[in-house]
């Protein structure tokens, strides 16, 4: 199966990856090759087969509702790109 340029542009936008037209074209070719490999599984009859999300069929364990974490803002923000007054800063968000 072969992807279109607009498919690739759409995916890049969804994934927040800046790509110029040359990169889009290169990605289109490579992704098309990979999807040919993937296409092998389309022919398999999976009627009635339950999808498998986890290696083991187990249930979620529940955590007691008890506070275990303390304030580590200083340590966490020491490695942040841009902070001010305890806030992480990003370019203005418009709604």
């Amino acid at each position: 199966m072969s992807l279109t340029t607009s498919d690739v542009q759409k995916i890049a936008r969804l994934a927040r990856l800046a790509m110029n037209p040359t990169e889009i074209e290169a990605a289109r070719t490579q992704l098309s090759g990979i999807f040919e490999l993937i296409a092998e599984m389309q022919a398999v009859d999976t009627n009635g087969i339950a999808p498998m999300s986890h290696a083991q069929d187990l249930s979620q364990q529940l955590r007691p509702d008890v506070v275990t974490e303390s304030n580590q803002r200083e340590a966490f923000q020491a490695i942040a790109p841009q902070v001010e007054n305890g806030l992480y800063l990003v370019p203005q968000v418009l709604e």
Partner: protein
Amino acid sequence: MLNLSLQQQGDALRAKKISSVELTQLYLDRIATHNPVLNAYVTVEAHKSLAQARSADAMLANGTAQALTGIPIAQKDIFCAQGWRTTCGSKMLDNFISPYDAHVITQFNAAGAVNLGKTNMDEFAMGSSNETSYFGPVRNPWDIKAVPGGSSGGAASAVAARLCAAATGTDTGGSIRQPAALCGISGIKPTYGTVSRYGMIAFASSLDQAGPMGRNAEDLGLMLNVMTGHDPRDSTSLARDKEDYTRDLSKPLKGLRIGLPREFFAAGLSQDVAQCVQAAVTEYQKLGAVVVDISLPNAKLAVPVYYVLAPAEASSNLSRFDGVRYGYRAPDYTDLTDMYEKTRAQGFGEEVKRRIMIGTYVLSHGYYDAYYLQAQKIRRLIAQDFVEAFKQCDVIMGPTSPSTAFNLGEKGDDPVQMYLSDIYTIAVNLAGLPGMSIPCGTGANGLPVGLQIIGDYFKEAQMLNVAHQYQMATDWHQRVPATVGA
């Protein structure tokens, strides 16, 4: 000293024949000599390692030492270690000093082991040759033109070159077993859920599993004893009793049923690898094992299924790398979206971006059922194949990798060819089974060949027994690459 097993090194430490500081320094010196060529380590901080060695010596002196106390272990740079730069092989985390310890790191610290440094890896563990690392490729000590395999390529290279006593790795589609095979060492990926994923930077959460890489099966058992155990911080960590993985090492193999899946010996497998694996099976027969012909009919679908599921999970797991709270942020941008897009375009390498794109596509509107859901259904078929197979045999054997190590750059332009190098390892991750690789010969180019051993769920101790008995009878695991002579 460098060729002693972990047990022997531990004995020497406990007998005060050598101190942990001396042993650590010995390895640090070798790293200084060989790492400029091999590039197995991304980060070495001698003062941190030596401080840990001094603490270990104190434990050794006051009699609180455990099996691995004082032994220098290399940590794959996918494990967050407090105060250590933790890059995951990516520019995105080039400047990331972890503020916390992964469960695996905590376990080694508690055992008194020395963290010798962080090993190089394919970026975010995506790769089979260690060529996708932002920090440059790792070289195979058996032939520095060859790749070490990936993604735990730095770990495999370091163990093979005696730049550490043993190492940790992680395996999502073969990332412990394939580099172990290509570098002539031993490595085991335990049953999914056996080692906590807490603090291990996620690639594909439902497949990722940490495990040890070392020179022999006994070492792997001692490492597993430290790494495993229930961790309530990982919901997928299994609540099982602690076990001693070395307990069955010396059991005789008489009557062991070895399943040979015919799909693993079909077209695509290079002749020299096939011969080594056959020879190993013959050796096992001499040890009393019997061979059973089995079939894993859906195994051929493992690669396509994996390249839907793993990228899908990865595309979501890697969304947190957005330049807001830690890691790389692009220097110039016009607005929020531009900041995201440039940060991620510049911070991630080509392979990572490729997989994010695949994953984003297969999850997107209108394609989910045809790709993601279909892949999850076939995943079940693949797992069921193994359930059937283990009704007829105790362990499954086959090649780890279709060929010995290929040269750097050889498969660079064709992702599909690269993906096919994990053709024998991926099904094990999809099923969540334990799998290991041990050296079993050398190929036509004189490079190591790995024998893959696949066990049923939670049969790690038995697999280590199977590997150990072979290693008692052969010496492939003791060979040292000439380039690093030790």
